[in-house]
């Protein structure tokens, strides 16, 4: 009898405790940095080395590329089949250029199976809202701008003849940071 | 005195044999296996043990298939062995034969051996261990299901993972996925 009363006490004590339910569609969960959601893919970084397709345990990645005018490999198509992708992160692990990485996008429900075949463009667009690439770029650009502004200020202080902003420097800094 | 010769297609059951100084663990394990072999042969005759060696660091004894159940029972019951706990049962298809391996553990002596036996691939059949160790009941059913070894004396030998209409034995190396193409009205779907 005593055990039952003790149990009743425990449940009664919970009445006033803070509720833990997450109001999901309104309040989105905050994922940690390493969260493995749906990929983002940055075509200009890809060197078509095929490593991601080879390491993939479920063979859900298919890609093709060709050499452009500068004899550099360019990606043409890049598809991930999310019907069988298990979001294991191995493709991200092997990618030498970080052209593919994971985002915090986790909502993948769809009405038809075709929608699970995500192509390069979808994966690229995915980075805008969910990816870290965009934020990374912005941070770099910001840093580059600040750097440029600082240099300019220094130059202006030194010599007045230096005029005009330097967007070239900023973009150079950005692309330099990618590799 | 382990036999170094193995069928070419089969992976060697003894690692590190080519290494210049033999691994002391392997030597000790092989010596132990030989001891056990002597003990078994004293009881069950010279043909009972076909090979001894070591699986990495664990003594390995290969038993003639017809003595399989007797020797395992002996290992369980004999006072100097008392291998009373089956840790693992696994079957492997080596293309020429099917090998069944069990890892036995002795609760009392805290010792650990691996015992195996072989059976030809076609009409693969072995005496069942279920009467000795009730705990290998499902393991044997799994081996039967996936490798097609028939266990004689098993109380309930049915497929366990696949359904009864399944054709072929998936873990055999020559198994083809096309044997079980789903059909609808006699036509492949």
């Amino acid at each position, binding site marked *: 009898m005593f055990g039952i009363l003790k149990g009743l006490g425990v449940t009664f004590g919970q009445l006033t405790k803070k509720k833990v339910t997450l109001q999901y569609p309104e309040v989105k969960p905050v994922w940690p940095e390493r969260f493995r959601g749906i990929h983002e893919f940055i075509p200009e970084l890809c060197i078509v080395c095929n490593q991601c397709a080879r390491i993939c345990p479920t063979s859900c990645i298919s890609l093709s590329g060709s050499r452009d005018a500068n004899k550099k490999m360019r990606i043409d198509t890049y598809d991930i089949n999310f019907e069988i992708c298990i979001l294991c*992160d191995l493709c991200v692990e092997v990618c030498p250029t970080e052209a593919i990485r994971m985002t915090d996008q986790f909502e993948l429900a769809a009405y038809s199976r075709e929608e699970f075949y995500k192509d390069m463009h979808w994966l690229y667009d995915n980075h805008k809202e969910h990816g870290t690439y965009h934020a990374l770029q912005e941070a770099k650009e910001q840093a580059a701008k600040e750097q440029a502004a600082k240099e300019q200020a220094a130059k202006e202080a030194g010599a007045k003849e230096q005029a005009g902003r330097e967007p070239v420097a900023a973009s150079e800094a950005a692309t330099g940071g990618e590799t | 005195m382990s036999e170094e010769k193995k069928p070419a297609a089969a992976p060697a059951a003894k690692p590190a044999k080519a290494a210049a100084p033999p691994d002391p663990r392997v030597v000790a394990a092989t010596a132990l296996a030989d001891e056990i072999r002597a003990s078994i042969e004293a009881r069950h005759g010279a043909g009972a043990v076909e090979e001894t060696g070591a699986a990495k660091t664990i003594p390995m004894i290969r038993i003639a298939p017809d003595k399989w159940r007797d020797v395992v029972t002996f290992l369980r019951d004999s006072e100097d062995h008392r291998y009373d706990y089956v*840790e693992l049962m696994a079957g492997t298809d080596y293309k020429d034969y099917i090998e069944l391996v069990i890892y036995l553990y002795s609760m009392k002596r805290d010792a650990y051996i691996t015992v195996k036996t072989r059976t030809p691939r076609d009409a693969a059949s072995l005496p069942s261990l279920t009467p000795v160790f009730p705990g290998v009941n499902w393991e044997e059913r799994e081996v039967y299901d996936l490798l097609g070894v028939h266990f004689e004396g098993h109380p309930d030998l049915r497929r366990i993972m696949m359904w009864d209409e399944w054709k072929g034995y998936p873990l055999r190396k020559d198994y083809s996925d096309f044997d079980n193409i789903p059909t609808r009205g006699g036509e492949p779907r």
Partner: protein
Amino acid sequence: METLHSEEMILNIGPQHPSTHGVFRLVVTIDGEQIVAADPVVGYLHRGTEKLAESLQYTQIIPYTDRLDYVAAMLNNYALVHTVEYAMDLEIPERAEYLRVIVMELNRVASHLLFVGAYLLDLGAMSPFLYVFQEREMIVQLFNEICGARLTYNYMRVGGVKWDAPPGWLAKVRDFLPHMREKLKMYDALISGNEIFLSRVRGMGVITQEEAVAYSLSGINLRSTGLRFDLRKKRPYGIYDKFAFDVVVGQNGDCFDRYWCHFLEMEQSLNIVEQALESIPDGPVLGKVPKLIRIPAGEYYTSIEGARGELGVYIVSDGKDKPYRMKLRRPSFVNLQILSKLLIGQNMANMIAILGAVDIVLGEVDA
């Protein structure tokens, strides 16, 4: 005494049934409410992991092991990489070993919590199930931070772990421990003394030591009978010999002992995590591993103490980068065999209590 016999009835429980813990089917023959025979039918979740592994590199198999015992995936990860490391005689960096122990023991706590909750749900109490999920959620969030996934971790690698702990993570784990101990006390008050609960589990589904050994039971099913058999002590793998902890054993081998061992084992796991947190060194988390992992030809078997028992991986290698044959020794699969023996003569209400206490995860049973 003569008993009244009525017409026997075959009751088909599952594969979709609220308390079979997955797609598990149990065909029981009942006489009134008494069970005359029980035939467990498994295989509904069979994915052929062993066959798949034969065409995968060792690194690629790791995500597949996540799907075996999906409530304790860290331990599955470890079982595989441990066998590969054992076969290759690899040196593992100290810090990686400590991180492994921390995540494995936390995962064991999470898994046992789920057992306690699900078991009480089987017995008709809903609240414990929802309570334990709160603590499990905390552990799962910790895992989410360290490896980016909540259920299928894919965290271990041959030769170490994938990621070092993020900044502040170890402190979070340290904060979690006292909270968890507090909550364990609460669950104890809520459940363990409840007379209704006790009347349902005491003396129910008794397994003797001889039976347990003969049926190759492992884990808590074996220890609840009083046998002090814990692979972390018997054959210390990794760095388990550095930690002081007790092997929890039961006395009677009944359902209550199995429940209670889960409870006490959580405390022991918390102790291990605490010790590991105290002495975790700095350093790399991934050792020197060849880019393409090849195991020398031969056969290898190692086993670890999984959340449900002895979790072993048997690999036959022909020297290539893929296993020639991989066999998983799944504790749930082996433990489940004793169910049909335990159920005979019980009545239907006990059936669920006994099935629940055997603690199976169907992902593991069916591999």
